[in-house]
């Protein structure tokens, strides 16, 4: 008998229930602030999802997912900022005037156009991921070395954005004064509209990611995780596969970055801070990086706990989280989803037939450290 955890119909059924549950939340909540907070959890869920794809399925530990998130967030903030400016009378955002700029920098010009601005917000990080990924993967940088490179790259972007204060407002970041307008319609961050926008994005990204893992591409990416060397001799260009999965995961993080700014009307270098990118890894790790939905739930649980318990524990919160992460990595390499897998396996009476990766676990732990 096989473990129901591995049954595809059962998995899709869980997705259905999960999204149905998320769909009724706005019916029960009339507190606009709470709904807004829940929407931001959806954004964090997308980030955890992106890491499950890249790290869980592809075996590529990415400690710099904040690059895609942050660059896209800046793109979106610039778009929303320019919506508040007037080409005739008031073409320069106030913070630039305070930094004594007397004209709009050239790379801000395209953001007058909302469609183009959002497009660029997604395109720029994607192009960066393609370039950075193909350089790294073609020279066969992998494992911890790749993780360190992403970290270095994240810090480089952080410093750059901080340094060019007149163009980015440095450490203060950009605070667009108005909510995003699309087609003359306002996406009020404190309304169910924005909740539904995030919900739809999370739903589509999750379905897309799930299909991706079930495709031939997804299988080969998992094969690369097991043994990249072997896969090369079967005729696959491993670097190409790695670049694609890394870039697709970055695209999901970019979408999350755009939505985050819609929800909070704010962006600063803090979104490209190392701690934030590492939190994403922790969400996916605790929830279960081999389970897309597990990773999303991991983000919900930890961010939820942080909002409610974080205030009480203040400085010790990070310590508690770190300790929890170490425990999970040590005893449950597949996270909470892995726990479910074990429990369902016991209930089904399955004698460890297919999946419990006794072999893989050693490697997984090493990757998680």
């Amino acid at each position, binding site marked *: 008998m096989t473990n129901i955890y591995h049954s595809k119909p059962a998995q899709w059924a869980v997705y259905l229930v999960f999204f149905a549950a998320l769909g009724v939340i706005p019916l029960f909540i009339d507190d606009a602030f709470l709904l807004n907070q829940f929407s931001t959890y959806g954004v964090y869920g997308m980030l955890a999802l992106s890491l499950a794809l890249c790290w869980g399925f592809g075996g590529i530990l990415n400690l710099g997912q904040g690059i895609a998130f942050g660059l896209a967030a800046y793109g979106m903030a610039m778009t929303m900022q320019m919506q508040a400016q007037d080409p005739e009378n008031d073409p320069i955002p106030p913070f630039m005037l305070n930094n004594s700029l007397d004209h709009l920098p050239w790379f801000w010009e395209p953001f007058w156009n909302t469609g183009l601005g959002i497009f660029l917000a997604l395109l720029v990080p994607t192009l960066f991921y393609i370039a950075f990924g193909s350089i790294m993967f073609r020279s066969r940088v992998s494992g911890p070395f790749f993780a360190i490179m992403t970290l270095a790259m994240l810090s480089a972007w952080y410093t750059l954005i901080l340094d060019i204060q007149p163009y980015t407002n440095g450490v203060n970041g950009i605070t667009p004064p108005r909510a995003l307008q699309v087609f003359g319609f306002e996406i009020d961050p404190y309304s169910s509209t924005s909740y539904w926008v995030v919900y739809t994005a999370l739903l589509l990204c999750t379905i897309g990611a799930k299909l991706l893992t079930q495709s031939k591409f997804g299988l080969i990416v998992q*094969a690369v995780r097991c043994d990249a060397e072997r896969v090369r*001799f079967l005729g696959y260009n491993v670097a190409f596969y790695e670049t694609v999965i890394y870039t697709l995961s970055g695209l999901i993080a970019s979408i999350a970055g755009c939505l985050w700014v819609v929800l909070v009307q704010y962006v600063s270098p803090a979104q490209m801070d190392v701690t934030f990118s590492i939190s994403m890894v922790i969400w996916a790790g605790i929830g279960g990086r081999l389970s897309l939905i597990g990773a999303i739930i991991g983000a919900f649980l930890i961010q939820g706990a942080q909002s409610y318990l974080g205030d009480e524990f203040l400085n010790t919160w990070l310590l508690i989280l770190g300790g929890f992460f170490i425990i999970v990595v040590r005893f449950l390499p597949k996270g909470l989803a892995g726990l479910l897998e074990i429990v369902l396996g016991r209930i089904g009476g399955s004698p460890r037939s297919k999946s419990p990766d006794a072999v893989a676990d050693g490697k997984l732990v090493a990757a998680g450290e």
Partner: protein
Amino acid sequence: MGMLEIRDLNKSYDAIHIINGFSLDVTELTLCCLVGPNGAGKTTTMDLITGRQKPTSGQVLFYGDDITGLDEHEIARRGIGRKFQVPAVLKDLSVRENFQVAYSRTTNPLRNIFKFHSKGFERKLDEIGTLAGLNERLDTQAGLLSHGETQWLEIGMVLMQDPRLLLMDEPVAGMTEIEIEKTARIFNQLKKTHTLIVVEHDMGFVREIADVVTVMHMGSLLAQGTISQVESNPRVKEVYLGNEVH
């Protein structure tokens, strides 16, 4: 002219010469056994053919095309499949998934994103699963197979690729007598449609399958010919067969 021509191949690490002016012609639809003492450079030769290592000098021609220095996946796509000395299968994946990955008809990732079924795979799986005796084990995780089964899985994966030239590095190492006999039968069947280079220490097995035997010693060609020619060669007896136990 051979389907595979190795011309004056050299490989050295600093001052250590591992392959020394090695040349070899392999004729289409023959089975060539590559033998020689440990450290003779047999595996390194396979590495040089398949692009895992780049030669210091020399050329490898496949159907007249120079494939020296191409990437591993490009060489594989031209039709050279390889089984490794230490069996290399995808341990986390099931046997079926291993075969699915090896069925590499489309290799472009952007196309494979939209691929959920590979045409002709089921038929091929049935054929190779039967050949490899793994039909009952398709849903087993590859890491849990026995040593013999793992060898067979990897041989099956190479066949799944449908290469024109098969390189087998010690395919029967660790197999039982019965398994070895079965492998010999299958290799004899395969050489009617494929070209094979087999590295093997088991001379009994070599005797059953080889059309041509090539003996390597310290990175160069020591002797070449039919099994009886090679076995009666005094130089071969001295450096290789003399100290083999049968």
